[in-house]
């Protein structure tokens, strides 16, 4: 087992332990901090899965802003006394989660996954002499340097930027609209209680 594999297993185990801490602990602030730990370790796992830019995005967004937002929300909604944090029917929820995990575990092990690009190309019947820019799922965006088939290719920020503005331009714009709507919605919904929400009435004649 080389360093990459060992790091993945260590990070995965730590992430699962932190996730269990998020859903099981009785202190809500511990939940928020353990969530930040779990999601930052997920960023490490993205690095090990050869997604450098995504690891950066993950740590910036989840380690930077989501953690602050969650701690603010927890502090602003502090209950007066120590509350009960779990429903009475939590064994049923645990049973449901375990059943779903059993189904996913079985399917992960029983499905014959295509584990490499050459497997995928052989599955669809492509000949081995096709150019390196043609993959079974389409051509790469123009100008992006492509690796030989079978080589791990780390997509850098410039590659992802080119793809976001050429192939994925429409989803990118829609995501911008989603962020704008969420921002405006959060401002409107969380407005202070004393501010007037209606238009001022015109002065009486």
């Amino acid at each position, binding site marked *: 087992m080389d360093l990459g594999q060992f790091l993945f297993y260590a990070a995965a185990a730590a992430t699962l332990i932190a996730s269990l801490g*998020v*859903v099981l602990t009785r202190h809500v602030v511990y939940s928020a901090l353990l969530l930040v730990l779990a999601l930052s370790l*997920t960023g490490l796992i993205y690095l090990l899965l050869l997604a450098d*830019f995504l690891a950066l995005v993950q740590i910036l967004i989840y380690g930077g802003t989501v953690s602050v937002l969650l701690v603010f929300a927890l502090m602003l909604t502090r209950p007066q006394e120590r509350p009960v944090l779990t429903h009475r029917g939590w064994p049923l929820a645990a049973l449901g989660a375990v059943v779903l995990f059993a189904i*996913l575990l079985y399917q992960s092990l029983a499905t014959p996954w295509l584990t490499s690009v050459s497997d995928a190309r052989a599955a669809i019947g492509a000949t081995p002499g096709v150019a390196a820019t043609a993959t079974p799922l*389409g051509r790469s965006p123009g100008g992006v340097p492509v690796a030989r088939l079978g080589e791990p290719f780390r*997509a850098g920020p410039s590659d992802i930027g080119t793809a976001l503005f050429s192939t994925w331009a429409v989803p990118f714009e829609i995501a911008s609209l989603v962020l704008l*709507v969420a*921002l405006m919605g959060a401002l409107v919904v969380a407005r202070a209680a004393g501010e007037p929400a209606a238009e001022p009435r015109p002065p009486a004649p």
Partner: protein
Amino acid sequence: MVPLEHILIFSAAMFCIGLYGVMARRNAVLVLMSIELMLNAVAINLVAFAGRLDPQRFAGIIFAIFVITVAAAELGLGLAIVLRVYRMRTTVDVDEIDLMRW
């Protein structure tokens, strides 16, 4: 290289832990945190498949970027709603916010 099945089992475990948190926790903010766990498990799945099967076009990585974007937007809006509810009812216990129950 880590076998693909191990990555899928890890993300399935994280998803199911998040699912338990959504179903069993009573604080609305903790429910939103568990939703974040589920969304990140899905993103790990997408990135794992992108690395194995689609390295040149990395569609899974782009998809995961959009998942993170929408998750952050939904978390912000959800927390605004939770704050508004807290202002009205002084509680964020999902069992006590039952205005729409028949």
